[in-house]
């Protein structure tokens, strides 16, 4: 909402200056977004008379002037303007003034050896136009010595953000009322004298849609002369950011902006028969004043005559019956429209307007008659003519709303005990009716549809009294040191995040939404991912079913910027389908390892790319940090079609629960994401981690190192290539659980001496003696058990 200070002062009798008013508006909740104060820019410029002019001794084109700027003594000014002469009244910038056009600060200076105490300005220099062929010349009666801003009547324009609850402040009068309540002056009473009609309204006016349009007041003014508005009206509208159109249209806009009361003027000559508020018919069309055509439906209220629709009620008038310079008779409409209907219609049509903004917030249902009076008087003054009697179709919803209010609530909710007298004063000044003692009966004025209950009144009292006066009050604090608050899931996430960063990975935060193709590539084929109906772009459309595609897109961007090796991870949600149509959002960690694991190096030689074992190492390390039983996880297949079928695996807790997948990505995936070179990836499904067991106590089990030293024995087994090393290790571990504490593969050899299709796996087995040291017989027995167990998985001891 924008308006000039002059407009405000028409309603508010105040001595307050612009800055004070601006501060007060913000403090009231009418946030100032800007004050455009052309007066402030010109305040340091004075109306001044040239007393004498003489040739500059050193320069032909310069004159030395003696100028009266209202001070005690004339000032010497050097001037190069061709029109500078004795007797001229111009505009003088004094030292310290900032020239609006170029931001230069004027100072005392010497020009070609002659001191100059100011500058006579051109219109262009003052930002007042393009004229620059000479200095400004003012009429002979211009008062020498006054500020040029005052002489011009320059007026600050306030730009105020109106919150959606304050329909009343979508008119300057409502803003003046708030300022008056805050002690910034006195609100002038409304000037809305009834204008008697001199003839019966020649048009039938009805509302056939009492729900959408409960009341429709109207009258005709005949014999008007339409044309451009006078300067005061045009200036007022321009200050409000509106383009003056014609006196009739401008008058309706003036009433809307001044009083928050939208109105419409129809060219009577363009109407046929009765003018009726009714529901639109399915498929009915109207061309609105913005030149666009709208197709309506029966939920929408319109104003129509026998010929068709002339107005999308409360939102925008029709092009056909709009006023023009040829208009001589007008029908004025001042109506009350149901806010919900307006909001729904506006949303359905995608049409916003100043009228809609007011009607959907709720205009004052008690202001129809006065609004029409003000509009009538204004049109008669601007355009002449003769007004008919007023037709009042329907009844606006005028029921008095009462709130039972306990003034102690101000302290209970607001935290500040505002004295009852002050509360009463504030509410009364805002237009509320206050009666009763103890529990007050507060009558809500019609222009405050937002006031529904006692907390709303507390807000009124506190905001006018001053939010800055509410004392800070410490929250009650539980005794002792603050307790831990994080849930197990939060602790896990933090731990993993820092563990991953400590392992050298960079945490990214990528979009939750993906291009369709990227999401589809990682989606479960049985469950379509969530896709937005109104995405901001096709690239941000489908909710990610995995964190990997987002990281792969980031990997590509990084590669395009020349990153050689990339370790990027993210912890966040993947979005799945849940029960009953809700979402299931599962916590995940994904890691992408792309490009070089290590750069070429004097010690290690060529650059090394990431491989599947790098991914495995990260998967196991992070699962370990997450508390998963890493030693007992199964390494199984089926990592998914996105992965290299021979270089990927899942880590499972039991055969069904997949905790993680890892490995090299499939070349098809790389191609889909426009990546080259091998890329390794890890995805942890944090929602599937087992709940940590344990008593929750801090005490750890007692430290009991074995009394005897462990011994190691090496075994080499020949196994078929399709037998997983993990099977052999598991078989050997299980051969003698009392003695075998660890089994580690330290060699995987294929070639000379090993049958084709086979390999030799060398295992280091750690044995922990319990009661007594091993003798040869005991070691032999264990070895036999190991060899027997290995044989069961097809591994034979290498000869």
């Amino acid at each position: 909402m924008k308006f000039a200070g002059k407009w405000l002062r028409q309603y508010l009798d105040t001595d307050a200056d612009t800055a004070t008013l601006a501060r007060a508006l913000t403090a009231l909740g009418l946030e100032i977004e800007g004050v455009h104060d052309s007066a402030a820019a010109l305040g340091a410029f004075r109306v001044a008379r040239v007393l004498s002019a003489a040739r500059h001794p050193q320069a032909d084109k310069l004159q030395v002037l003696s100028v009266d700027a209202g001070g005690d003594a004339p000032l010497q000014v050097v001037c190069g303007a061709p029109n500078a002469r004795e007797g001229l009244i111009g505009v003088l910038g004094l030292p310290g003034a900032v020239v609006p056009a170029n931001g230069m600060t004027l100072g005392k200076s010497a020009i070609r050896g002659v001191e100059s105490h100011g500058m006579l300005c051109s219109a262009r220099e003052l930002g007042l136009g393009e004229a620059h062929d000479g200095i400004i010349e003012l009429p002979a009666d211009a008062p020498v010595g006054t500020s040029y801003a005052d002489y011009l009547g320059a007026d600050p324009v306030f730009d105020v953000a109106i919150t959606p609850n304050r329909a009343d402040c979508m008119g300057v009068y409502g803003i003046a009322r708030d300022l008056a309540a805050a002690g910034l002056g006195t609100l002038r009473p409304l000037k809305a004298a009834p204008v008697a009609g001199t003839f019966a309204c020649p048009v039938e006016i009805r509302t056939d849609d009492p729900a959408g349009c409960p009341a429709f007041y109207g009258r005709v003014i005949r014999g008007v002369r339409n044309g451009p508005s006078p300067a005061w009206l045009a200036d007022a509208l321009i200050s409000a950011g509106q383009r003056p159109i014609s006196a009739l249209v401008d008058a309706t806009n003036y009433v809307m902006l001044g009083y928050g009361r939208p109105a419409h003027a129809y060219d009577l000559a363009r109407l046929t028969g009765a003018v009726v508020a009714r529901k639109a018919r399915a498929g009915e069309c109207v061309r609105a004043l913005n030149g666009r055509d709208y197709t309506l439906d029966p939920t929408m209220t319109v104003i129509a005559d026998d010929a068709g629709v002339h107005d999308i009620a409360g939102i925008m008038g029709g092009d056909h019956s709009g006023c023009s310079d040829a208009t001589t008779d007008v029908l004025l409409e001042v109506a009350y429209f149901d806010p919900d209907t307006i909001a729904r219609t506006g949303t359905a049509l995608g049409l916003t307007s100043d009228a809609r903004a007011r009607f959907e917030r709720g205009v004052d249902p008690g202001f129809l008659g006065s609004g029409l009076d003000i509009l009538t008087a204004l049109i008669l003054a601007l355009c002449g003519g003769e007004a008919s009697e007023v037709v009042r179709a329907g009844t606006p919803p005028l029921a008095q709303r009462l709130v039972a209010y306990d003034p102690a609530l101000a302290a209970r909710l607001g935290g500040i005990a505002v004295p009852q007298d002050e509360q009463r004063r504030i509410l009364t000044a805002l237009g509320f009716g206050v009666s009763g003692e103890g529990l007050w009966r507060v009558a809500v004025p019609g222009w405050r549809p937002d006031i529904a209950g006692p907390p709303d009144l507390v807000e009124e009292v506190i905001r006018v009294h001053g939010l800055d006066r509410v004392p800070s009050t410490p929250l009650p604090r539980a005794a002792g040191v603050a307790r831990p608050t994080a849930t197990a899931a939060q602790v896990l996430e933090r731990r993993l995040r820092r563990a991953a960063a400590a392992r050298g990975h960079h945490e990214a935060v990528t979009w939750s939404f993906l291009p369709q193709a990227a999401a589809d590539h990682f989606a479960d084929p049985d469950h379509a991912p969530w896709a937005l109906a109104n995405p901001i772009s096709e690239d941000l459309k489908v909710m990610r079913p995995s964190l990997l595609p987002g990281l792969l897109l980031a990997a590509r961007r990084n590669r395009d910027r020349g990153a050689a090796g990339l370790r990027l991870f993210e912890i966040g949600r993947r979005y799945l389908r849940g029960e009953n149509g809700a979402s299931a959002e599962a916590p995940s960690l994904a890691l992408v390892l792309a490009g070089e694991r290590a750069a070429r190096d004097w010690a290690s030689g060529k650059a090394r790319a990431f491989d599947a074992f790098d991914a495995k190492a990260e998967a196991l390390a992070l699962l370990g940090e997450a508390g998963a039983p890493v030693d007992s996880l199964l390494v199984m297949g089926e990592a998914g079609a996105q992965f290299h079928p021979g270089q990927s695996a899942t880590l499972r807790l039991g055969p069904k629960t997949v905790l993680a997948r890892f490995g090299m990505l499939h070349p098809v995936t790389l191609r889909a994401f426009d990546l080259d070179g091998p890329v390794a990836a890890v995805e942890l499904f944090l929602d599937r981690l087992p709940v940590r067991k344990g008593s929750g106590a801090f005490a750890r089990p007692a430290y009991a190192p074995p009394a005897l030293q462990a011994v190691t024995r090496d075994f080499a087994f020949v196994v078929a290539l399709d037998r997983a090393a993990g099977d052999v290790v598991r078989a050997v571990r299980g051969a003698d659980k009392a003695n075998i504490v660890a089994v580690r593969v330290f060699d995987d050899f294929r070639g000379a001496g090993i049958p084709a299709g086979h390999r030799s796996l060398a295992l280091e087995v750690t044995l922990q003696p319990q009661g007594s040291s091993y003798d040869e017989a005991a070691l032999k027995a264990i070895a036999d058990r190991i060899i027997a167990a290995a044989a069961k998985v097809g591994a034979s001891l290498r000869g």
Partner: protein
Amino acid sequence: MEQLDQTLAAIAAATTPDAIESLRVAALGKQGWVSALLKTLGAMSADERLVAGPRIHAAREAVSAALAARKASLEAAALDARLAAERVDLTLPAAPPLRGSIHPVSQVQDELVEIFADLGFAVATGPEIEDDWHNFTALNMPETHPARAMHDTFYFPDRDKAGRSMLLRTHTSPVQIRTMLAQGAPLRIIAPGRVYRSDSDATHTPMFHQIEGLVIDRAIHLGHLKWTLETFLKAFFERDDVVLRLRPSYFPFTEPSVEVDVGYSLIAGKRVVGGDGDAPGGGWMEVLGAGIINRAVIAAGGLDPDEWQGFAFGTGVDRLAMLKYAMDDLRAFFDGDVRWLDHYGFAALDVPTLSGGVGVRA
């Protein structure tokens, strides 16, 4: 004792362990001349032995000591020679450290959680794909409410089983409703997380992070809200001169509602939080929306608004991060550019603590 002098000279000249060993055998071995002299002692008279004994023993000691000294010196020389051969050029580069990073959003969320834990706030979460009842209706925004349109909501074509439209939550406030319904009152929670609005420019991205705060008890009022926000912002910026300006505002879910500005001053063209925004060179910057929870919202949360009241606030995590750590482009937050992450990210060990200070100084 000419032999002794000769032996000592030979030892001093020996250059190998073998030479030393043969000298030892020649002197101290079974057939060695010192051993031979020792054997002569048995045949001597007591008086002769008194004279010759110490001399022979002294010779033996001298030879032993010379042998040990020469051996040690030869070993030291050998070690020196080996070490000289093992010399490496340590100006060559070592393996570079692996330096990962924590994203600023995560870091600042951790900071906020740490501060609010001290004030007794637990962390609550809720779904990002929400239904319109939790995101709007329960928060006192019926279907035609003008504020709904202002939220620039992303919708899904889907409805849940109850027929509610599914959407991306436009704020973290639905967590208020879910937590009230699940936990009842009293409550003290914060709810950080992703939120979505259909908006995109240098300061707005369609996805960003909010943190919601909620306190419900029997006698919580605006004064407590003011104190909480002051206390939190002072702790977050680690400055005692943080000045807040509360402005009346409007949110459907609070009544009264306030917007909170924080005073800043311009230092080298950047906004630095602290001081009175009305001071010369200063200004105010909006950082929070807040208010006393609307009775309708308390009721939608399944609580009796005559018994329970409280406050709620919401603020942008990304904006707080930008303000504190002087980052200026929100879009870069979600790009995954490792150069940016390396520059603005935090070390794994930068864990915010109250004792160490929650923030990380540059």
